């Protein structure tokens, strides 16, 4: 059935967020706000050693301590709820990671939980943790990914026989031939530093088992409540329909909360065993040493370049540092494999080869964080391209544009099917916004005054709408994804949408309502989005990977389509017209060309529920549950940074950043710009401020926020954002997904700007973060090189 499409009334508009007032009033309910009769509180005893055998644990005094209800160690939990993690589609290339909820043999990183205390209050639980005596036998620790892969490295998981969790190779085109014959060869080794999503709300879990109905309720600060349910049910040996997962307001996730944590299994297990509700709220020290770090990646890149500056072939070897355990379900491949899959980026090379390795080390497990391995991969590739430009005496932007792919849909050499965009125009637009030629002029003038300005570009293609197709393109298993929404028109013509997507800042309650209101011709505030509770919401794998605008948006297109069809048929019956002759606009269904012959949506809905003239030959329930598993889609963007480096102190000041973003159809420009600004600040943080170093014994050197330094209001740059809108030809609503771009692109822009600023000193940048002390070391080393 074809109904006339009317111009959108809400999609594309800057609608203020309907979710805001509850946060602004302090009324939103986060996990820690959950209070239940008889609630007990858990605290973990965590390993002070990076690698140590547990000879014995004496919890006797702790069990006797005031207010304590239970103390569990590895011996008490055994194999219950054990997490088994692998990539099923790659049995020959990827090992299987096994993690007990509490280890029985040894601790594998500082912060590894070895016992849990449940007490009347968190204070008392921590008191009892102090009373647990562990007889430790410290073992040699491995803190460097490449050293971990060496033959003689201490083995962290004995059953694997070594510390290599995965090794994947890929090659396409005549790599060797092109490298043999190219006019220029370049190599770049880049170490992207360990960072951390660090949502302001730490992790938290509350478990409660209700005997009567036989239902386990788990409140957890997660991005994917349904997948938590699907994972927990078998681990706790419960049927899935007796597990209900509630993700209430979630105080930021950024990928960290799109995995299953041992604590997330253990707390419900305790609730089941004790018959009392149990709460655990992660504290900041736990968050910094034991939740999930990210993006530490060693990238060894090589480029074969023609004498005209054309990029012919890229080779890359990526060694990821997974830490002590595999993030469930992603594994430590989430960084190296995503980086490798995007080695070609937006460049039209002829051959590519990559290797991706995952090393196990005695550090905090590494997991997904907004932009995952695309971020370090982008930083490494773009830093290499700036090196190439300098070596060839070419302008870095012009060299990039020369090598940029066509803006038409096409396939990358690693097999990503780009759906077209503004790859060249985004770069040109960024240059225009910077007033590039004059900026270069200013840079020269300032250099004469001993001031060092630098300009860095970072254009990229960004996957959006992570689901089966994009997962496959990134080398992950993706037979099929189940992401659905339910749309129901209530008797008063208000509309309820349920979904297992989960907003933790993205504004779903607003953006998705815009889509539905337009599709059904109802007022925006007639639509309500319900999510965050597996009871009564349609199944979805959650919100991550820049997917909700695409995947939920697409599912909504289909579900609202069903309902439109029904409304039109019912109206056609009443109006005695052919459904094909009807149009739905401004809240009314009317005969095309004859507006006098029309019904309001409310009248049609009333007819469907209880009206006299309801047709008898069609199914009239005004509800539809539809899923959507989109094809691959890719946004593109160009980020540019202008920085000034103080060569005496090493301080980097970002004068300005510019973002040109093309994410296809924009649902709500205010939310899109908010996502860009927020992601960008995270990228700036990774590039310039945040570090999670370890000493040689594997002690974390940034266990509090005094050492792990988020960017503050004083550290984020003035920002100009421009949009190019190239709707996706393949997704249901033209949206491409864009939540991660700033985090993917900003570090490369910052790295290149700093390198550009320091180019008079012969400095090349090959790591993050670029903190003041690191900048001065670069300058010192360059001075020493030039002396030698």
């Amino acid at each position, binding site marked *: 059935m074809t109904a006339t499409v009317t111009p959108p009334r809400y999609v594309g508009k800057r609608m203020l967020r309907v979710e805001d007032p509850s946060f602004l009033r302090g009324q939103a309910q986060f996990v820690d706000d959950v209070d239940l009769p008889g609630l007990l509180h858990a605290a973990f005893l965590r390993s002070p050693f990076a690698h140590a055998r547990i000879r014995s644990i004496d919890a006797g005094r702790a069990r006797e301590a005031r207010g304590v209800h239970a103390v569990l160690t590895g011996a008490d939990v055994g194999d219950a709820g054990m997490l088994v993690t692998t990539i099923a589609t790659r049995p020959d290339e990827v090992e299987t990671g096994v993690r007990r909820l509490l280890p029985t043999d040894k601790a594998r990183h500082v912060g590894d939980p070895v016992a849990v205390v449940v007490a009347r209050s968190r*204070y008392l639980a921590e*008191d009892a943790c102090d009373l647990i005596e562990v007889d430790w036998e410290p073992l040699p620790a491995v803190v460097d990914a490449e050293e971990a892969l060496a033959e003689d490295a201490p083995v962290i998981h004995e059953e694997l026989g070594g510390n290599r969790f995965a090794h994947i190779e890929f090659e396409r085109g005549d790599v060797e031939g092109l490298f043999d014959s190219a006019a220029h060869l370049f190599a770049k080794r880049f170490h992207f530093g360990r960072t951390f999503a660090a949502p302001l709300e730490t992790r938290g879990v509350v478990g409660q088992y209700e005997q009567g109905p036989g239902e386990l309720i788990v409140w957890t600060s997660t991005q994917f409540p349904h997948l938590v349910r699907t994972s927990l049910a078998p681990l706790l040996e419960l049927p899935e329909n007796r597990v209900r997962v509630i993700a209430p307001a979630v105080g930021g996730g950024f990928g960290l909360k799109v995995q299953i944590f041992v604590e997330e299994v253990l707390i419900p297990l305790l609730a089941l065993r004790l018959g009392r509700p149990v709460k655990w709220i992660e504290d*900041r020290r736990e968050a910094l040493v034991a939740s999930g770090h990210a993006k530490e990646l060693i990238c060894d890149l090589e480029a074969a370049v023609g004498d005209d500056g054309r990029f012919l072939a890229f080779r890359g070897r990526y060694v990821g540092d997974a830490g002590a355990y595999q993030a469930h379900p992603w594994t430590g491949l989430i960084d190296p494999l995503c980086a490798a899959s995007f080695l070609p980026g937006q460049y039209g090379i002829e051959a590519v080869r990559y290797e991706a390795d995952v090393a196990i080390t005695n550090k905090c497990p590494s997991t997904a964080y907004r932009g995952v391995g695309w971020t370090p991969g982008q930083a490494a590739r773009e830093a290499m391209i700036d090196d190439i430009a300098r070596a060839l005496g070419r302008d870095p932007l012009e060299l990039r544009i020369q090598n940029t792919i066509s803006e038409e849909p096409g396939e990358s050499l690693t097999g990503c099917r780009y759906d077209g965009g503004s790859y060249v125009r985004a770069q040109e637009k960024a240059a225009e916004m910077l007033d590039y030629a004059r900026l270069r002029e200013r840079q020269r003038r300032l250099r004469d005054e001993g001031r060092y300005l630098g300009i860095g570009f970072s254009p990229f293609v960004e996957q959006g709408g992570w689901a089966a197709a994009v997962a496959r393109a990134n080398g992950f298993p993706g037979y099929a994804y189940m992401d659905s929404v339910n749309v129901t028109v209530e008797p008063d013509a208000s509309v309820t949408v349920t979904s297992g997507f989960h907003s933790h800042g993205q504004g779903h309650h607003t953006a998705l309502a815009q889509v539905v209101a337009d599709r059904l011709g109802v007022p925006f505030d007639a639509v309500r989005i319900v999510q965050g509770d597996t009871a009564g919401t349609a199944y979805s794998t959650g919100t991550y990977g820049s997917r909700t605008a695409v995947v939920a948006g697409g599912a909504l297109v289909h579900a609202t389509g069903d309902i439109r069809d029904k409304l039109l048929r019912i109206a056609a019956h009443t109006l005695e017209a052919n459904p094909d002759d009807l149009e739905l606009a401004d809240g009314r269904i009317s005969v095309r060309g004859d507006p006098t012959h029309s019904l309001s949506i409310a009248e049609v809905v009333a007819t469907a529920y209880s009206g006299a003239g309801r047709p008898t030959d069609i199914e009239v329930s005004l509800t539809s549950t539809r899923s959507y598993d989109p094809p691959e889609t890719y946004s593109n963007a160009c980020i540019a940074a202008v920085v000034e480096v103080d060569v005496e*102190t*090493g301080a980097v000041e970002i004068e300005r950043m510019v973002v040109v973003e093309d994410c296809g159809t924009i649902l709500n420009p205010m939310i899109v710009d908010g996502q860009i600004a927020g992601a960008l600040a995270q990228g700036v943080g990774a590039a310039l*401020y945040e570090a999670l170093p370890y000493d040689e014994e594997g002690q974390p050197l940034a266990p*509090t926020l005094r050492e792990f*330094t988020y960017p503050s*209001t004083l550290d984020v740059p003035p920002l100009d954002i421009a949009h190019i809108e190239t709707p996706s030809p393949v997704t249901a609503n033209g949206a491409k997904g864009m939540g991660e771009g700033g985090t993917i692109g900003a570090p490369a822009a910052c790295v290149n700007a700093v390198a550009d600023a320091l180019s008079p000193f012969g400095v090349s940048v090959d790591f993050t973060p670029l*903190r003041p002390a690191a900048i001065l070391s670069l300058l010192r080393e360059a001075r020493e090189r030039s002396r030698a």
Partner: protein
Amino acid sequence: MKPAPFHHVEVATVEEALGQLREHGAHARVLAGGQSLVPLMNLRSVRPRVLVDINPISELERIDADGSLELGAMVRQAAALRSAEVRSLAPLLADVLRQVGYPATRARGTIGGSVAHADPVAELPAALVALESEIAVQGSHGERLVPAESFFQARFETAAGDDELVTRIRVPRLPRRCGWGFAEIAPRGHDFAIAGAACLLEIDSDRVCRSARIALLGVAERPVRAADAEASLQGRGLDGAALSEAARHAAGDLEPPSDVHASGRYRREVAEALVRRALAEAARRGGGGS
């Protein structure tokens, strides 16, 4: 991350506080603004049995400006920052306080607490050293005045004993023609510094340096004066060369510690630049420099 249990004892007078400290010795800690102590207690890396809460001692909240500037130990950093007396008598202190934490930590954090905590990367102790302040310490045998430079002894260690209380900070009046400067580098925003320099220059009418005081923070286990650098400026015109030479002197002998934010080597390098910048600012303010 919750503090271990303790007994909370509020005291209304210095004498009461001293009585508690005598009774509990090393098991007691003094609670002033709590902005340094409570984070450590929350981490359980400090676990006093008795917390002697001196917040009710109102006599320690006074700011007196009778010739020299006298700050009671319980003067909140925010109050000192707002104080006209501090601005006019010790403008360096006002400048430095702006770099100390944030509105919400300054509202509780006290001058005395910052002094007693003796964090080598804190700004306030270095400023007090540059200002040649004296720290009044009271014990059972009465009050003694300790020059700031000898008060700060090592990281988190001061000349005050377990049974003594920091009660006042005395900042002497500045010389008549005097400029001040402060420069620091921090990992971000207004965090604790990596390194910094606080300088005072007394300048003749003919723009010659009569005396110089330079104190550095973040480059040793305590704030340190740069005596050679100070001597090198005495009697000299404050041109760029003189300032650079002094800065080199100031940084030359340092052997700063390394930590997660920066290596010792970096701190030495950056100290030179920071001293030069702080001196240049001081020279400009004092009317003696370019």
